[in-house]
C-alpha cells in the first residue's frame, strides 16, 4: 500500500499539513491528449481535515490549472449555510508519488496564505490515516 509519512515540529499547533501537487485529472489529460509532463501544476500546502466532508482547493487554483468546472455543490460552514460552489476534477499528488488520479474537489476561499487545500473525508475514505501525536508525525496510505 503506497504511503508517506510527514514529521511536523509541534504537530498539535501546526496541524497535519503536507505539500502536494494539483494538476488536471488524468482522465481529462488522456481524453484531450495532453501529456501529464507538460500540463500546468500547482504546488500547495494542504491540511488533512477530518472535519471536512469533501476536499477544498483555494479559489484561483483551478484557473491557474486552466480547467473548467464539472459540478456544483452547496456547502455549510460554522458561519454560513447553502453557499453554491464550483467543483473541479483534479489529480492530487502527495509526497512519494502517492496520489489520486481523479477526484472531484470544491473550490472556495480559504483564509490567509498558509493553507491552500483541505484534504477531506472524500480522500480519506480511500485510505488509512495514522496520527501519531507523541511522535509529531502522521502517515497517509492509499
Amino acid at each position, binding site marked *: 500500500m503506497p504511503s508517506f509519512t510527514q514529521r511536523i515540529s509541534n504537530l498539535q499547533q501546526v496541524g497535519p499539513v503536507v505539500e502536494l501537487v494539483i494538476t488536471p485529472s488524468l482522465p481529462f489529460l488522456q481524453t484531450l491528449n495532453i501529456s501529464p509532463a507538460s500540463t500546468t501544476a500547482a504546488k500547495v500546502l494542504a491540511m488533512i481535515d477530518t472535519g471536512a466532508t469533501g476536499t477544498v482547493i483555494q479559489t484561483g487554483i483551478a484557473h491557474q490549472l486552466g480547467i473548467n468546472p*464539472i459540478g456544483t455543490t452547496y456547502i455549510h460552514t460554522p458561519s454560513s449555510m447553502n453557499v453554491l460552489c464550483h467543483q473541479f476534477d483534479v489529480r492530487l499528488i502527495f509526497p512519494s508519488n502517492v496520489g489520486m488520479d481523479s477526484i472531484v474537489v470544491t473550490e472556495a476561499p480559504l483564509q490567509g496564505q498558509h493553507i491552500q487545500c483541505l484534504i477531506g473525508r472524500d480522500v480519506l475514505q480511500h485510505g488509512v490515516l495514522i496520527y501519531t501525536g507523541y511522535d509529531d508525525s502522521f502517515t497517509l496510505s492509499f
Partner: protein
Amino acid sequence: MLEKETKFFESKLSELQKTEMEKFVVIKDEKILGSFAAITDALKFGYERYKDQAFLVKQILPTQQPLNFANNFLLM
C-alpha cells in the same frame, strides 16, 4: 458558470429520482445528455464531447447532501 445547469438539475431532480437513482447525469445548458453508473464514465463522456468547456455532472440521490466543514478555514 454552471448556474443555468444547476437550476435545470434542481428543477428536474424529482423526475430523475424516479428513473436514474444513484446514476451520474451529464448536463449542458438545459439538456440531460446521458446517465452513467460511474462518475469516471460521466466525466469521460463530458470531456470527449465538450473538451475543456464547463459541463455539469451530478449524482442522483434521494437527498442532495451539502458538504459540511467543522472548521473556520473557509471565508464564507
